[in-house]
């Protein structure tokens, strides 16, 4: 151990490395490249991971939609093809029957599923915008970002059936002047005046909304459009640890029971499971992580083997020198130690260079892509434990691979080594 921390040892190693520049450089390139690939790949995988997470951060990732369709099987005297209709009362029934449900939001909309969007007018400006009838809880399932000063719908709006609305960015742009504050202003939605209470900052979250949506209280909506207890669809978020795929089945089963559809009728209710889709994407990014780990480590191993290879050649080249050293009193242990340390030292230096280059490349890629929307690539980093792990692997491999040329070096008898010219 003393040997490793001895300054003299390192001076010898430094001398021999410095005086064999070309060999050193070639040796270093192999491992540098290996660790560079490793850092680059796992950083990119992590960036992708972060990117997906950012894209989905405003949605409860364990969420789903469920809507009504037509039956495809006759049941209890009802004929095939009967249209199904979700009711407001289903909410409570579903909540009672499925305790995994964390939030459930009944939603109505005008202007998405083929019907005409609401005609919205303000002064001389007008436009057609899809209008949602919503409960405040929908904000918990798919986050609605509101610009400063405004608010989303609240429980009182629902209770009082207030004529208030939250408008999308584009609605504001099209109905208001640039320097105008829309908050507190009135717009006419299908000829009824609504006060604007908030402007939504739009972020694509995989729903039906876009940047020109208008949200009004569910109760107000149903009154204006004569919806009664009808609901277009439910947005449902489950607790984080709930099995979303199982819940999806359970909910549809509950709905079939309530609405007297055949229990095996697959088409009575439709659903889209964000949780499942999200899980698939996350699985993909996990796979990428794994792949980058395998490829990276394989490349590092290849690099370290190259170091061993080059050291082996260099030992052959230095046979005479090693013979001289041994004639002058170097013990086999010292010769072996020197070559292994050279190997480990080169590996580590190469590793650090690779890490620096890798980090630099990741930073450049991050800078180039950070402004772009819809490109799921954010903050590519490599976790410290992975770097330490890589360094550790390099040290171990460097030692092991160094053993081969070291053994070779001491297996040559000094007398033969000296004869070598």
């Amino acid at each position: 151990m003393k040997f490793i921390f001895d300054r003299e040892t390192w001076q010898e190693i430094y001398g021999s490395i410095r005086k064999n520049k070309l060999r050193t450089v070639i040796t270093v390139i192999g491992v540098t490249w290996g660790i560079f690939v490793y850092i680059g790949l796992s950083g990119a995988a992590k960036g992708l991971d972060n990117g997906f997470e950012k894209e989905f951060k405003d949605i409860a990732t364990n969420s789903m939609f469920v809507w009504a369709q037509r039956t495809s099987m006759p049941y209890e005297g009802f004929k095939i093809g009967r249209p199904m209709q979700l009711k407001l009362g289903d909410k409570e029934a579903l909540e009672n029957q499925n305790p995994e449900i964390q939030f459930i939001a009944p939603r109505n909309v005008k202007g998405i599923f083929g019907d005409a969007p609401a005609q919205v007018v303000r002064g001389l400006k007008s436009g057609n915008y899809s209008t949602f009838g919503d409960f405040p809880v929908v904000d918990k399932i798919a986050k609605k970002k509101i610009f400063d000063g405004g608010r989303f719908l609240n429980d009182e709006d629902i209770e009082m059936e207030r004529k208030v609305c939250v408008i999308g960015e584009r609605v504001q742009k099209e109905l208001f002047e640039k320097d105008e504050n829309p908050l507190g202003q009135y717009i006419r939605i299908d000829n009824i005046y609504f006060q604007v209470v908030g402007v939504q900052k739009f972020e694509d979250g995989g729903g039906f909304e876009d940047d020109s949506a208008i949200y009004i209280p569910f109760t107000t909506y149903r009154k204006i459009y004569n919806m009664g207890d009808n609901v277009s669809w439910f947005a449902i978020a489950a607790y984080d640890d709930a099995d979303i795929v199982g819940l999806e089945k359970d909910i549809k089963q509950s709905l079939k029971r309530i609405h007297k559809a055949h229990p095996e009728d697959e088409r009575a209710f439709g659903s889209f499971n964000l949780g499942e889709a999200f899980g698939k994407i996350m699985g993909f990014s996990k796979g990428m992580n794994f792949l980058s780990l395998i490829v990276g480590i394989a490349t590092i191993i290849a690099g370290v083997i190259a170091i061993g290879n080059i050291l082996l050649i260099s030992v052959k080249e230095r046979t005479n020198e090693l013979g001289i050293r041994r004639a002058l009193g170097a013990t086999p242990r010292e010769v072996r130690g020197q070559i292994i340390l050279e190997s480990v030292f080169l590996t580590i230096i190469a590793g650090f260079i690779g890490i620096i280059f890798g980090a630099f490349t990741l930073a450049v890629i991050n800078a180039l892509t950070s402004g772009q929307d819809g490109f799921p690539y954010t903050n590519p980093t490599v976790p410290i434990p992975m770097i330490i792990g890589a360094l550790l692997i390099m040290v171990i491999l460097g030692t092991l691979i160094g053993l081969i040329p070291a053994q070779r070096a001491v297996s040559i008898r000094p007398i033969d080594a000296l004869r070598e010219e």
Partner: protein
Amino acid sequence: MIEIKDLHKSYQMGSNSLHVLKGINFSVKEGELVAIMGSSGSGKSTLLNILGMLDESDSGDYTLDGVEIKNLNETKAAKYRNKFLGFVFQSFNLINYKTAAENVALPLYYQGIKRKERIEKALKYLEQVGLRDWATHLPSELSGGQKQRVAIARAMAAEPKVLLADEPTGALDTTTSYEVMDLIQKINDQGNTILVVTHEEDIAHMCKRIVHLKDGVIMEDKVIEQVRAEQYV
């Protein structure tokens, strides 16, 4: 200083066995300057290699400074070499990427002497061989005679009991050869024991004793009148 009894050594050459040393009996006292002579194939280099622990004998006794040399493993041999012996080779065998001073300091490194002291000592020995000003030069920047003088300084730096020189003048011209011999004589004057392997008569006559080897046995072992190399320099 050196005591050899009935030394045998043979090499396997394919199916043939080549008997190189056939029972050598030989002793060297402290302060002697011995020339080992013989034509090529006479076994003189083999003898020197065995004396230098670079090679092992098949049978026979070898005592160096009262220490019996046998059953050496490489580690032990390395320690003895470092402690007892200094080597000078025909082809100098300097490490080409180390400066003259670093080359001279190398055996001291393996003795575990600190760097500062090492460099000081190396410079002292370079001074002795007259190459103090060349300390920072690489071997490639030195002439053959200078290289051999650096090699001698290196051999002396470890303060060995015996200096073994294998054809030290073999790669040098006559004038340079005499310069090197002059240096060896001066080192011998200080009381160092030196063995020189050579096949050149004039070089051999600059020693104090000549041992003639032929076909693996000692033909002749005589003390001679030393010719000083100074007069030719």
